């Protein structure tokens, strides 16, 4: 019986071999101790070199990188399972600069950025991260040129339409936070449909902050609390941190406070993102522009996170 880790390594080597050779179908027999049964998996490599996994009933289960396992994949060398963050937040900055450096329009940068997000979602699913919050569009971004804003709204719709099935297959639950009333109606409907469609998934909870402002989040919590005070549901003296947390837009999440926040492109600020929730979050500022932020850079951020001593104001000793 092969231990799970070495069977996974063998699988990856075979996939790599199959990608480099002509399109073919190979069958690997792997025994997964956690499942206690022999699973026959066929891996078909398409003409484009992309591997798709089929189960023993011949049903295409999606990308080869999708593991139909209840346990996360082994981590890269140097990362410890027990020190992995449960909730990672990302400010996806640098798309326009990336495009400008290549003499391309900003829209190309945003489209390239989608690839990075796709990879990040897959890695979070593989490595057992529970919540991923992405800052897609801030309330301040509405002041950008109309052409860019319209393009971004269109891009969000296109990406959500094309990626929804893949995201759902990976067991990702989608939620959104932010003032959705400002979004185009078609995007509002699409996001609502995506939330409904994926609500029972549990591999990863992806929270998309769109038209979001940290200060507005706190202000709307204040409004809701004021209404409760006026209606006599609570007294002013009942207002405490727990009450406010319960009224923030992130209150639905099992882990509302990110353990790690990554901001790309070298900018050293939060830009009005999740202000209350970031009280004790470890911040990692990456020089890389978002379209270039891939597995290597994410592993670097995770390494940095795992080196840190989190004290929450007290002492370790």
């Amino acid at each position, binding site marked *: 019986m092969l231990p799970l880790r070495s069977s996974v390594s063998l699988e990856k080597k075979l996939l790599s071999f199959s990608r480099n050779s002509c399109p073919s179908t190979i069958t690997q027999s792997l025994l997964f101790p956690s499942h206690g049964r022999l699973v026959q998996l066929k891996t078909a490599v398409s003409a484009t070199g992309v591997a798709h996994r089929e189960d023993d009933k011949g049903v295409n289960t999606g990308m080869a990188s999708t593991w139909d396992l209840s346990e996360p994949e082994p981590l890269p060398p140097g990362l410890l399972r027990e020190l992995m963050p449960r909730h990672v937040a990302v400010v996806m900055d640098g798309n326009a600069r990336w495009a400008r450096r290549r003499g391309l329009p900003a829209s190309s940068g945003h489209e390239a950025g989608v690839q990075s997000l796709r990879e990040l979602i897959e890695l979070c699913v593989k490595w057992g991260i529970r919540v991923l919050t992405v800052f897609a569009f801030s309330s301040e971004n509405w002041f950008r040129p109309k052409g860019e804003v319209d393009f971004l709204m269109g891009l969000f719709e296109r990406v959500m339409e094309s990626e929804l099935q893949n995201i759902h297959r990976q067991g990702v639950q989608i939620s959104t936070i932010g003032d959705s009333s400002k979004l185009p109606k078609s995007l509002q409907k699409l996001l609502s449909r995506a939330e409904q469609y994926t609500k029972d998934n549990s591999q990863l909870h992806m929270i998309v902050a769109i038209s979001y402002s940290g200060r507005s989040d706190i202000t709307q919590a204040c409004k809701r609390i004021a209404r409760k005070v006026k209606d006599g549901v609570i007294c002013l003296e009942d207002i405490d941190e727990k009450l406010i947390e319960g009224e923030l837009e992130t209150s639905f999440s099992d882990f509302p406070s990110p353990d790690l926040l990554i901001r790309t492109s070298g900018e050293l600020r939060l830009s009005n993102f999740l*202000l209350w929730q970031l009280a004790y*979050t470890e911040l990692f500022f990456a020089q890389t522009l978002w379209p270039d932020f891939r597995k290597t850079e994410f592993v670097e951020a995770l390494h940095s996170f795992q080196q840190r001593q989190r004290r929450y104001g007290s002492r370790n000793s």
Partner: protein
Amino acid sequence: MEVESGYGFRQLFSGLGCSFRKFMFSILSVGPIPDHIAFIMDGNRRFAKKQHLVEGDGHRAGYKSLISILNYCYELGVKYITVYAFSIENFKRQPEEVQLLMDLLVEKIEDLLRDGSIVTKYGMRLYFIGNLGLLSGAVRAAAEKAMRATAHNTRAMLLICVAYTSCDEMVHAVQVSCREKVDETRPLWKSELSGVCNGRWVDEGGKNHSDIQMDEGIPIIKTGDVERNMYMSVAPDPNIVIRSSGETRLSNFLLWQTAYSPLYSPAALWPEISLWHLVWVVLDFQRKHSYLQRKRKQS
């Protein structure tokens, strides 16, 4: 003779250093100078361990470092400085350490109020920001005395966050905002005579309050209302936040106010923070200033 000449050399170097600093600051002043810098003074205990000192001496070294940095900042033209002296979470530390810090705070408040101190040198107004009710009577009395004694100063401001967390500050701001808005509607009722509804309110004297925007029976609370009720509303938002000792997190410090502030985390422990760290941060701030101003104008 040797002692005198040694003293003379020290005076000479000190004078040269001072002249060089003034020259450097005059160059920096060509560019924009941050109005408000906030410091998270982290690393005193680690410094004490590193230098084989007792723990209290690490905090004393940290105080000396603070005075140096304050001198540099005010010389440079920074008007507001905020320091994170003691978090509400720090009360969970060992009682001996908490007591040591409280005693040091009282001692240093008294030092600041003496003639010839940095407070009198720069016409500095002191503010103690936080939930002061959590402090012991003696500490709270010292803080309130310092705020009264410097209330007339207007040239510069030093905001000392003690018994503070940003979440606690926001709880307080939310409570006050709720109280204000709920109280505003108590004497009001809808004008039945005029037949107006949807936001037209008059008080007992018949005065029209149609300027008050309503939402389901209570005045609308805006971001500005919450901001106005923060402890930190006495100063503008920080232009820069500096946390020493290389840790890159805010630890519940000015979460609201630093929404757009660049964050710097030099590796030096707080007692090791020097003029050069400050100069480097200000240079970087100047380099990015016009870009950040553009971003702010977009919002």
